[in-house]
């Protein structure tokens, strides 16, 4: 993992002092509100319904146990003892005090962390595949490129006051696990016929009020041009993006208004004229340096047949462990290892609903210890608001599972209906139109039978509390959007969305349902699926595939007919 050098460390330290001074000047009335607003946003600080919210960056989702311990300490000292992981693999604190934020940032800087550009109209944290570097079929590890992009985009002097926010995602496998098609820029590592590495470049994807799938503007960009080309895209956007209406200001609106080919032409003209082959050109030596931070850990060699046989005995002996193994572990390129997904969708624990993505300070400390013991001290955040231990020995899975279970972190529901992406909603967010946590709790209570969930198979359920779509409801197999009707919270359901390779926007089922009816409506939808799905001996038709095949009419009929 990338380690800060002197320059990195000095810079985050300076940034803390800069923000301390800005906060002081704001509180003293010297810095006008309209200037402090974008400045605090670029340090991750929102003003929410009850308190400020601080969004801390976890670059491309990768972090270390010592950083997680510091986060635990910060939530104890300055907040209410928990943090919330987001779809863009950052972590949010919901209750910091404005005047404490400079001190929190100083604590973060002591463990190479910060909240820089996690918010505001600038280039945000770059995201990637949580299984980067461990997949057998990976074309190339995306993390070195993510780190190069992080260093280029952090404090880029030209792009800190863009028309609107700007998000980049990079993947290194054919299978897209980072929702790249709904990012402002999506980068797909690929090789050309000569075997050289480069990127397919997509622009203009995004959700929110106007959901759009990104368009390919360059089928193969040789990797040495990565930064000069991104620079050209950003400049075209900075100069041409709309600034008269914040709902029309994202790059997707610009790309839609002129079409992908015309936008590509503008970028090419800018690139050829000003940045191509200039000082942003990367060298082979640069790539070697960047890659050196993401070398393989010291994997052990195993008698794999022995390991497999021992594991099989454990799986046969314990159905709960077998369920967890099937749902929550992922194949690894090194024999004898698995990646483990830690579900942050505990559901209802001791009678209390735990919001998606929330982790308590004691869980953070415990996870840090487990990461040290079982996964080379590293953790990763995922787009689905879960965590990953990427390198776990198969012969240690059983004991890890036992320990995660006592922490309520081993719920075997990954990729099932209750592995929901849920935004904080009305309970915290001042933009929200409706609550989300009470609805998620209702769904948890209705669908608490694991065997039923396994029978339903892979279903992505995403729920946002407003049309800003932080929980990406458009791209869920089932999407739920909270809306406000004369002061009451109602919920609009959509079906058939997808954020992966076959990215598409879900279709709205019909008129919104009242808060009390969400779970029963879902039950009707799932009944249609179970009645109509086609199965053979090898395969069961997935929910998303059925919606593709039959459309939403039968679901509509069942719910509203």
């Amino acid at each position, binding site marked *: 993992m*990338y380690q*800060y*050098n*002197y*320059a*990195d460390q*000095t*810079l985050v330290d*300076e*940034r803390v002092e*800069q923000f301390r*001074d*800005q906060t002081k000047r704001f509180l003293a009335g*010297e*810095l006008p509100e*309209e*200037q402090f607003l*974008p*400045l605090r946003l670029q340090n991750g600080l929102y003003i929410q319904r009850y308190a400020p919210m601080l969004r801390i960056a976890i670059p491309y989702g990768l972090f270390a146990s010592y950083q997680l311990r510091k986060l635990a300490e910060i939530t104890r000292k300055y907040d209410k003892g928990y943090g919330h992981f987001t779809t863009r693999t950052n972590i949010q604190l919901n209750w910091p005090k404005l005047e404490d934020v400079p001190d929190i940032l100083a604590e973060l800087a002591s463990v190479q962390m910060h909240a820089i550009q996690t918010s505001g*109209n600038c280039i945000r944290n770059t995201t990637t595949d949580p299984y980067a570097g461990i997949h057998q079929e990976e074309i190339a590890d995306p993390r070195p490129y993510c*780190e*190069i992009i992080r*260093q*280029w*985009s*952090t*404090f*880029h*002097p*030209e*792009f*800190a*006051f*863009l028309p609107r926010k700007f998000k980049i995602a990079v993947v290194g496998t054919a299978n897209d696990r980072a929702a790249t098609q709904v990012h402002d820029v999506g980068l797909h590592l690929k090789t050309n016929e000569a075997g050289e590495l480069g990127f397919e470049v997509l622009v203009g994807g995004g959700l929110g009020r106007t959901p759009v799938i990104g368009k390919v503007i360059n089928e193969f960009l040789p990797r040495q041009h990565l*930064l000069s080309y991104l*620079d050209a895209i950003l*400049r075209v956007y*900075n*100069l*041409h993006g709309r*600034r008269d209406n914040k709902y029309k200001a994202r790059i997707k609106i610009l790309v839609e208004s002129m079409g992908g080919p015309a936008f590509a032409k503008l970028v090419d003209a800018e690139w050829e*004229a*000003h*940045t191509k082959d*200039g*000082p*942003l*050109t*990367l*060298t082979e030596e*640069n790539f070697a*340096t*960047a890659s050196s*931070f993401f070398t393989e850990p010291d994997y052990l060699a195993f008698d794999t047949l022995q390991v497999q046989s021992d594991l099989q005995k454990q799986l046969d002996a314990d159905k709960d462990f077998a369920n967890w193994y099937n749902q929550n572990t992922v194949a690894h390129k090194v024999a004898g290892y698995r990646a483990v997904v830690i579900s942050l969708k505990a559901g209802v624990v001791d009678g209390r609903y735990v919001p998606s993505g929330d982790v308590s300070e004691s869980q953070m400390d415990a996870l840090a210890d487990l990461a040290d013991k079982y996964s080379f001290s590293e953790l990763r955040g995922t787009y689905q608001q879960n965590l990953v231990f990427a390198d776990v020995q198969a012969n240690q899975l059983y004991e890890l599972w036992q320990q995660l279970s006592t922490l309520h972190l081993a719920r075997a529901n990954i990729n099932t209906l209750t592995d929901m992406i849920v935004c904080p909603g009305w309970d915290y967010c001042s933009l929200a139109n409706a609550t989300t946590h009470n609805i998620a709790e209702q769904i948890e209570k209705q669908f608490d039978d694991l065997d039923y969930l396994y029978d339903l198979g892979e279903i992505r359920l995403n729920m946002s509390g407003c049309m800003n779509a932080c929980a990406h409801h458009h791209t869920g197999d089932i999407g739920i959007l909270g809306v406000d009707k004369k002061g009451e919270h109602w919920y609009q359901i959509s079906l058939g969305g997808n954020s992966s390779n076959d990215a598409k926007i879900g279709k709205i089922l019909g008129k919104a349902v009242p808060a009390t009816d969400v779970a029963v409506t879902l039950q009707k939808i799932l009944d249609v699926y179970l009645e109509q799905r086609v199965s053979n001996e090898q395969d069961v038709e997935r929910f998303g595939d059925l919606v593709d095949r039959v459309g939403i009419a039968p679901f509509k009929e069942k719910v509203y007919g």
Partner: protein
Amino acid sequence: MGNHHVLNHEGVDISQNDTWLALSTNELPDGIALSHISLLELLQKQEKLEVLLPLSDLLDSAGKLAGGLLEQVSDLVTQHASRVGVWVTANSDTDLLIGLSEFLLQQDLIVIHVPAFTDGRGFSYAQTLRQIGYKGEIRIAGQFGRDQIAYLLRTGVDSFVLNEHDMQSISDINQAFNALSSSYDGRNAAALPMFSGS
């Protein structure tokens, strides 16, 4: 025009030595230069002055340098000026700089007016001017803020026009000019921390 100050790239107040005059027009924003002069006054002056022209007024509807009367006026000003510059507003047509490189490279001063603190187009204007090889002075005016000065310096800006209120409120000008002094430099791959060997 209100009372303004010009600061150089080190934050030193150079207003005393700054003799640039903006040509008076109906749409001249406050603070493009410390003072302004009408065309008639300019033509009556014996000595040659340093004069700033509004770039948009020199262009035709297609964004090209206009011929005819406008060209004659521009020539007349040039004859009565010791040095000539132009001002542009970041709020004007964004394609303004494209196709005008040759003309822009001849200017002694280019003033970029920022219409709003959150409008970041001025950063790209300045950076583009440097990339096309402009070596003259780039000055920023308008609604930029003290906390943007360090970024503006990195995009190639040389000097800053501040109003009296901003001058009063910046208790430590040095700090504004040196903020994030060890910042990454998104313009140059070799300067990124992991490649710079520092």
